[in-house]
């Protein structure tokens, strides 16, 4: 057990790629927490997908020990957090486990959307914030300007911001001293009944469920019988330890300490993030205030390309869900795509990451349907339901009205692109809430419908601003609007997988774009095929794919027979991969590409 005054707990927060994980590397390295041999770049980003994409997805905790200038040994618990908005939930719960934050700002970039979002969260969590200007080794670094921006835009004192190069190790010693001198020690009473906060949990192939905790009061020891106050689960503590960053066993954890335990917990779903852990006997009587659970906001259908792989997909999804409680799934059947799952995600990046993992780690080729959001349906009979899949939209005659989720989006963008950004937001039914300037950067805040954002808003934003804009959002609740289900009919048959909810005013435009796109994506058949977009029974857009007139091999003599026959067989096999829709065969890509709107 460590004396409270010798403990400092902090998270490292920043906008994407501003250097959190690299700074964590230096802190770990300069305190000799791991040997030179074990050291590698972004050491904490251990998942394949993290290393490949160069981003952090899961927050990671490490305990390091540091002998400060005052001659004392301090125990520092650092939590490296993800920068991407989809994983904001990881950041917020990490913050609840610590007393301070290192706010890393790339000194060549300045304050970005997630910088702001993180600061607000840190302030809400009552954190002491230490600004760190990173990447000062780069010629484009402009510490003066960025410090000024921090004061102007964020409103915190940046006069003693640390100047660091996480990459080349400049300012690391100063950072460690600042952690010790500027961040507060945790509070807590070792004699009080045990109160530990469940910060995170995940499944480990060897150990089963591993639970990350922050002890607030009391002491937890190996062998203790504990109870989770929210779920009521009771377990004996089997293994207790800390991350350095490898697991290291300890006998006890006291107030202010962060560590893990295992206790033969079967699945991650048996634990609840934010729950309070106490002793079965002489436990605390009041739990800690919990966290708001994370809720999936983006939904899509995942179907195996090869329908024979449905069971493989089921077991893969179950395995992934074991470790990622933020992702939800339920079985879905589609006339076009067969059996699959409707899955819920924290955002589009989360969706992409899960899909990537299913395809690569489990080797299942997938069709992803249009991402959609959760609508609230208010029926004429006074009942209310959630709509996760546009295909399930009931007949409009029994629906009184529809509410859609709205977000508050913060976009930081260099002046010269502001016009394009405003136009984009306006086109997406946005309502401007705020527009301010900080030097040559503008900060706009928009109220936007989430369904306009899940499509390709982020891609569009990147392209109209050449990548110079940053974007963050928060859910803002539901609002009624004129939303209708648009169906796509191919050869007069509705294709459920292509149904979508759209705003009535944008329906014609969307419908026309979809029909044009599908006309290019569906190969010609022996007959002509009408492609229509319809609302209710009313056709709002129409294209006709003319019949195939020519598909013949001009030259075929004795020597060609083998080769030509193989080619036909290959083409025939290729057709099998298409989805049969009435008499029409629609290739897989059509389902994905049709939904990418390049306006």
């Amino acid at each position, binding site marked *: 057990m460590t004396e409270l005054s010798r403990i400092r707990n902090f998270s490292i927060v920043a906008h994407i790629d501003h250097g959190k994980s690299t700074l964590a590397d230096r802190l770990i390295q300069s305190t000799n927490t791991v040997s030179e041999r074990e050291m590698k770049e972004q050491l904490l980003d251990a998942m394949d997908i993290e290393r490949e994409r160069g981003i952090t997805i899961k927050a990671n905790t490490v305990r390091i020990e540091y002998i400060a200038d005052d001659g004392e040994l301090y125990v520092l618990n650092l939590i490296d957090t993800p920068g991407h908005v989809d994983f904001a939930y990881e950041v917020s719960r990490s913050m609840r486990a610590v007393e301070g934050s290192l706010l890393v700002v790339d000194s060549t970039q300045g304050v970005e959307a997630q910088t702001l979002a993180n600061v607000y969260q840190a302030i809400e969590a009552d954190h002491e914030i230490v600004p760190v200007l990173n990447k000062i080794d780069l010629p484009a670094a402009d510490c003066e300007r960025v410090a000024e921006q921090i004061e102007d835009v964020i409103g915190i004192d940046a006069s003693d911001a640390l100047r660091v190069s996480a990459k080349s190790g400049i300012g690391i010693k100063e950072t460690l001293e600042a952690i010790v001198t500027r961040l507060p020690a945790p509070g807590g009473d070792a004699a009080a009944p045990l109160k530990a906060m469940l910060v995170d949990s995940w499944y480990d192939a060897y150990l089963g469920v591993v639970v990350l905790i922050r002890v607030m009061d009391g002491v937890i020891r190996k062998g203790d019988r504990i109870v989770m106050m929210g779920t009521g689960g009771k377990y004996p503590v089997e293994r207790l330890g800390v991350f350095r960053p490898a697991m290291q066993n300890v006998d006890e954890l006291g107030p202010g300490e962060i560590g893990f335990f295992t206790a033969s917990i079967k699945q991650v779903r048996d634990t609840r993030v934010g729950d309070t852990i106490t002793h079965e006997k002489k436990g605390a009587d009041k739990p800690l205030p919990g966290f708001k659970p994370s809720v999936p906001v983006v939904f899509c259908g995942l179907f195996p390309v090869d329908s024979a792989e449905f069971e493989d997909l089921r077991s893969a999804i179950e395995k992934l869900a074991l470790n990622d409680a933020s992702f939800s799934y339920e079985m879905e059947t589609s006339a076009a795509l067969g059996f699959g799952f409707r899955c819920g995600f924290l955002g589009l990046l989360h969706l992409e990451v899960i899909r990537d993992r299913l395809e690569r780690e489990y080797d299942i080729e997938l069709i992803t349907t249009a991402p959609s959001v959760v609508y609230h349906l208010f029926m004429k009979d006074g009942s209310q339901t959630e709509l996760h899949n546009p295909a399930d939209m009931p007949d409009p005659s029994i629906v009184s009205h529809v509410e859609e989720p709205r977000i508050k989006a913060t976009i930081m963008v260099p002046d010269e692109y502001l016009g394009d950004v405003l136009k984009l937001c306006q086109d997406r039914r946005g309502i401007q809430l705020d527009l301010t300037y900080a030097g040559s950067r503008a900060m706009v805040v928009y109220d936007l419908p989430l369904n306009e954002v899940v499509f390709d808003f982020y891609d569009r934003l990147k392209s109209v601003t050449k990548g110079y804009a940053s974007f963050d959002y928060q859910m803002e609740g539901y609002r009624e609007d004129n939303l209708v289900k648009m169906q796509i009919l191919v050869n007069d048959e509705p294709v459920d997988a292509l149904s979508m909810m759209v705003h009535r005013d944008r329906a014609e435009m969307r419908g026309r774009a979809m029909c044009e796109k599908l006309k290019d994506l569906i190969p010609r058949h022996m007959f002509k095929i009408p492609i229509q977009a319809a609302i209710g029974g009313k056709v709002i857009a129409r294209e006709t794919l003319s019949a195939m007139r*020519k598909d013949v091999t*001009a030259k075929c003599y004795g020597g060609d027979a083998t080769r030509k*026959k193989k080619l036909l067989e290959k083409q025939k096999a290729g057709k099998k991969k298409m989805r049969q829709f009435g008499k029409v065969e629609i290739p897989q890509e059509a389902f994905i590409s049709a939904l990418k709107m390049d306006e």
Partner: protein
Amino acid sequence: MAELETWQEAGFGLYLHWPFCAAKCPYCDFNSHVTARIDQRAWTEAYLSELRRAAAETPGRILSTVFFGGGTPSLMQPETVAAILDEVRRLWPMVNDPEITLEANPTSVEAGRFAGYAAAGVNRLSMGVQSLHDEDLRRLGRLHSAAEAMAAFDIARAQFSRVSFDLIYARQGQTLDMWRSELSTALDMAVDHLSLYQLTIEPGTAFGDRFAAGRLRDLPDDDIAADMYEVTQELCDAAGLPAYEVSNHARPGSESRHNRIYWRGGDWVGIGPGAHGRLGLGGTRMATETELSPALWLRKVTETGNGETLRHGLGLTETAEEYLMMSLRLTEGTDLGRLARLGHRLDDTRVAELEEMGLLQRAGTRLRCTAQGRLVLNEILRRLMVD
């Protein structure tokens, strides 16, 4: 009724591949090569040796056709052709009026050898004219002008009773009207046979690469190409040279008997680099292939006495589907009785569907494509092939 063997049913021919050309055309994916020097004596010996090997396993079969294909067989010395034909006549009994075809490029140099070929026994010439416009001939990488081709054609007509020529259409920048007038001129020249191919962009050729890079511009789209095909049928029908195969037209009775062996599923011996053959042997239809590379083929034949690299028996379904694929190319279509004898049945509902769409037609024991169906034959075949 005793069962006929395939060679009796659909003929027995000999295909001989000559793999050299004076230049490589940018659209061509045939096994054709440009070399500085060809040792025609050594090549002659090798062909003769291969002929003897093939004859040894087809004793007593009556040969009805010989085809010198390429490459550019008109680069062969007449003596080489003569030596080969002499040996052929010694090795197999032949029908009374064998069809002996040689493919020729219409340059003046080659035209000079026509008389020699005729003397050697060649009685049909197939000329690669390709286009009647000089500008287009240049784009196609051809070494002859239109006038030169016409002159060669006249020489050929004087030497051979049967002369055919090839044109490639649906070329870059070609319009429907341009093709109509070019084809009319060609039909005025035509004797009794014409091969009219739509330009095919083959992967691995210069055109294929250019096309993939988006640099092969102004190709007619599928709709225009289909219109061109229809115009072709119309003009050829009017001129008395209807199509008897997808791209081949003849006065009735003047069809290429050799090529028809392929389409009717007959037997043929294939010798020379990269040549394929089909032979019914001991009740099994054998597919044969030879070494592709000219140099390796020559060495293999010279050193081991056998140019073959592959030989395997085709299964019944394979045989039947190959027959279907080839025979539906012909106006006369497929003999359903023959399919039945191979134990093969087509899926009735799919046939009915295609009939309903006006793409197939059943007449007695024959199944054939309608004119409209022939243009989408690949789709018909994909639907009729076993899943």
